[in-house]
């Protein structure tokens, strides 16, 4: 029931989500989302709990019915098909391995449903298991596997069917930090190797940045920003995006005659005049040593501040800097040693990113 004209699917779009809306009872979970997924890309749907990211995934998988909109895969309409007829497979959050079947039978399950010949099944199962490095567990019951091992089996079980799109519902959230990092690397290289489109759902922004070709930031049922990680990080469009991904300082500023001023901090800008919100990443702020304080550069913005708090962080320290007028900035400085009192800081004016909204996430 979409009223806006939809672009024809191009060779660059495998999965097309068009104006999809979904509500549960009174709550609108997804509010007319449109998203195109390219073949072979690793797309992450990133959002807090309640943002609708899992619902969107389940709509693509077929476990929920959408209220309006359409989902297309190439030239086939997907949303009217039941899940067992979609060329899409899911890696579930709790793995959902069949406890009464061995690892082999778990993986063979989809092949059998597709009526693959008995001769072909063992070869493909072995191949899938080898891909996730679980070959030796081929006859085990799932109950004997650790969480990480079960997850690999779940992955193999989905991939063996050669789906056109693989959906992953926060698959790493139950793993401990080290295992998680390891699995992230393996997942990424696996996706490269296999070339299948991955749609990955997570609330962890670091994970999203590490894995994705593109990130779709979802907030309360609406897409906040979609783009490659570097782009979203370097050029966030809204204060929500700026704060959700990485850390930032939000600077409400007045722009006037080529200068933006926020409290005591002033920097050069070529943007339009008026009120605006700027985002400045903590790592863009540098400490100015006493000797360099005399010289200056128009492209740099300098300010004084008193260090309220210094947290040791190994490679970088996190400083809380009081700039007067109840304006506090966070700065990440590389191993400065213990500091104190007033210091001079600077940043490149271009590092202050103007946001599309006025702030107030």
């Amino acid at each position, binding site marked *: 029931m979409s009223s806006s004209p939809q672009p024809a699917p191009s060779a660059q779009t495998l999965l097309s989500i068009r104006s999809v809306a979904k509500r549960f009872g009174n709550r609108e979970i997804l509010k007319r989302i449109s998203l195109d997924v390219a073949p072979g890309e690793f797309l992450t749907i990133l959002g807090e709990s309640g943002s609708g990211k899992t619902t969107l995934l389940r709509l693509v*998988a*077929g*476990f929920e019915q959408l209220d309006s909109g359409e989902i297309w895969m190439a030239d086939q309409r997907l949303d009217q098909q*039941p*899940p*067992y*007829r979609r060329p*899409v*497979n*899911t890696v*579930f959050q*709790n793995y*959902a*391995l*069949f*406890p*009464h079947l061995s690892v082999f039978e778990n993986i063979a*399950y*989809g092949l059998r*449903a*597709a009526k693959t010949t008995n001769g072909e099944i063992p070869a493909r199962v072995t191949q899938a298991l080898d891909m996730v490095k679980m070959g030796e567990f081929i006859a085990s*019951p799932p*109950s004997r596997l650790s969480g990480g091992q079960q997850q690999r089996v779940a992955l193999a*079980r*989905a991939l063996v*069917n050669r789906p056109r799109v693989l959906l992953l519902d926060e698959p790493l959230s139950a793993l401990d930090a080290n295992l998680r990092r390891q699995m992230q690397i393996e997942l990424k290289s696996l996706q490269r190797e296999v070339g299948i489109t991955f749609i990955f759902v997570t609330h962890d922004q670091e994970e999203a940045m590490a894995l994705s070709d593109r990130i779709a930031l979802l907030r309360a049922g609406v897409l906040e920003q979609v783009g490659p990680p570097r782009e979203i990080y370097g050029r966030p469009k809204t204060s929500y995006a700026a704060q959700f991904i990485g850390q930032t300082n939000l600077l409400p500023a007045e722009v006037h005659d080529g200068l933006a001023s926020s409290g005591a901090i002033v920097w050069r800008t070529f943007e339009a005049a008026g009120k605006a919100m700027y985002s400045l990443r903590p790592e863009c702020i540098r400490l100015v040593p006493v000797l360099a304080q005399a010289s200056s550069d128009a492209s740099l913005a300098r300010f004084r501040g008193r260090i309220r708090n210094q947290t040791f962080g190994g490679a970088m320290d996190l400083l809380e800097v009081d700039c007067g007028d109840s304006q506090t900035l966070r700065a990440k400085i590389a191993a400065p040693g213990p500091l104190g009192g007033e210091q001079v800081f600077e940043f490149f004016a271009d590092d202050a990113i103007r946001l599309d909204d006025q702030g107030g996430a």
Partner: protein
Amino acid sequence: MYSRSYKAAVTIPPVLWVTAFLLVPYALLLCYSFWSVTPAKEIVHSWNLKNYLDLFRNSMYPTVLFRSMRIAGAVTLLALVLGYPLAYYLSFHAGGRKELLYQLAIIPLWASYLVRGYAWKTILGTDGVLNGFLQYAHITRYPVEFFLYSPFAVVLTLTHIYTPFTFLPIYASLEHVPRNLIEASHDLGAPPAKTFLRVILPLSLPGVLAGATFAFVLSLGDFLAPLLVGGSSGIMISNIVVTLFGAAYDWPKGAAISLCILLIVVGILFITERVEKRFSFR
């Protein structure tokens, strides 16, 4: 964490009671089975195997025993045929009314056994509701005799009693099937019918086994339904025992049969436990 005296205090009284009121009685029953009764209706402690041998020599006992097993088998089968779909419907299709329907399903369990047996007597008799209805609807002209006082009546009554018994564990095991397994099965390409056969049914087998065991074992040893609605053709093995402990006054023989029933039941429990362990995947 718990002191020895604590453990002793909680362990000893129940163990003592159970020994006194369960183990000793079973042992006594065993002893009785080896004794004899004189024509003067006195029980003599002469240890012999005569009672057990009689069970094989007199063809009546095996006949009635096998009839009892056939009846118990029929009851179990029917109870499963009725109970499984009911449990499945409640678990997967009932939605918001699940709770209410569940309570409705177990209430008959709490209507007393006698009450229900008596009701079937009312329904099945020549003067009863079923016959009255059939004649009223001109389906039959004369009352059908065999509804009551027959093995048919016993099977019907016992099925009625034990269907909630099969329903309960099957429902519990169906509720325990993680719903994401069903989604996973669909996701992997298996339509609902295949999903039922390959995922839901296997995972519900423990419940089926439990319910079937209950229904079979309790039907096998039942003596009330035969007395109420069985007539002379519906006598089951426990009725023989009742008579032997009553009017016929041959306690040793009654004990011997009781022990046989006990052994059969324990044997069945043993087997189902083995089967359950083999297929259990917790």
